[in-house]
């Protein structure tokens, strides 16, 4: 079964944000389904917009409306009885509190069973969360994993409102003509940290999540004024120069869709 592209879900966030900025109305009346790729940056937008007044029009579907209300208003609920999703966890500034959140995500996703196995799933959430702490200088950051058993995929999203991947590399002294060039470099191992053993997390995860010998899924990265979506099939790969368009993001969104169930894989086939 073909996993659908995540770009339209990011576009849905862009559209909602654009309408909210131009009309003062966050109109979700037409939203009948929402994925982490839309929900996380939308939550980030609402958090960053505190103090501004947006008229909120909830989705007409009451189930979806309740879900969004829960996710946006209460990101730390004890929802262990609902095993199909993890709420959007805000990452604490104090990293010593983060292990418990990552443990909880592992537990709620059955320790990665059906999502490449424990080691691969832990590698995905641990490395990308580490990157947020190491590079982004965020004020707000979130992680969310949700399993769609009928749609047969799992979506995991990471969002932060920090200095972006291009911003982090430029701050370290690297020069790029476009944000997209910086993002491509980061995927292929460039790190803002000086040690040469650094810079593996993003690239290894892109390969592990998309390779046919890996999880065979899709990865979407949006950071500043650049973005790409990557999958094994060439026809599903896209690069985006976002420029000053409404698609640009003050922060970084990384979303991954993995076929569910996926066989257990060895992360060591992708590490170097």
């Amino acid at each position, binding site marked *: 079964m073909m996993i659908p592209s995540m770009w339209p879900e990011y576009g849905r966030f862009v559209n909602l944000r654009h309408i909210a900025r131009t009309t003062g109305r966050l109109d979700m009346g037409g939203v009948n389904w929402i994925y982490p790729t839309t929900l996380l940056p939308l939550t980030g937008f609402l958090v960053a917009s505190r103090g501004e007044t947006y008229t909120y029009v909830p989705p007409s579907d009451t189930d979806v409306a309740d879900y969004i209300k829960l996710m946006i208003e209460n990101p730390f609920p004890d929802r262990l009885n609902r095993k199909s999703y993890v709420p959007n966890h805000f990452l604490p500034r104090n990293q010593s509190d983060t*292990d*418990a959140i990552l*443990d909880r995500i592992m537990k709620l996703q059955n320790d990665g069973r059906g999502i490449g196995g*424990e080691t691969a799933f832990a590698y995905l959430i*641990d490395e990308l969360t580490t990157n947020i*702490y190491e590079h982004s200088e965020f004020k707000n950051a979130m992680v969310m994993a949700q399993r769609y058993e009928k749609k047969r995929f799992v979506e995991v999203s990471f969002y932060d409102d920090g200095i972006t991947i291009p911003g982090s590399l430029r701050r370290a002294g690297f020069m790029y003509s476009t944000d997209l060039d910086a993002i491509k470099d980061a995927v292929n191992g460039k790190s803002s940290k000086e040690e040469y*053993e650094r810079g*593996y997390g993003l690239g290894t995860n892109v390969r592990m999540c998309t390779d046919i010998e890996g999880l065979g899924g899709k990865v979407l990265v949006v950071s500043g004024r650049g973005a790409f979506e990557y999958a094994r099939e060439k026809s599903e790969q896209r690069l985006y*120069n976002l420029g000053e368009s409404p698609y640009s993001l003050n922060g970084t969104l990384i979303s991954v869709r993995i076929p569910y169930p996926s066989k257990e894989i060895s992360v060591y086939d992708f590490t*170097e």
Partner: protein
Amino acid sequence: MISRSKTINVAQVLSANLALRETATRLVQYIEGLPNPEVVLDFSDVKTISRSFAHEYSTRKRDIHKQIREANVSADVAKMFAVVEEARAKRPSHTRIDFEGIPVINL
């Protein structure tokens, strides 16, 4: 009297899933502050370890003047330590994501 060696159950004091660099830093700082000249890290209940944790732990461990020994390390965790050490020994050539030929959409 201080015993020569102290054993620490890593999963109990940290987590069964070792994820963040900062956690590795805290572990080594904790070890450094112990009066015992030898420390045994018992990894028996550790289920996963990130590359970042393994790298940070290995890097910081080299810089402290204390004997640290890892015990009951699972095959998976041992592999990650090996990956980090191999990368340290030689700069590997990354298997790159080939972005050539992918359509660029300018918005």
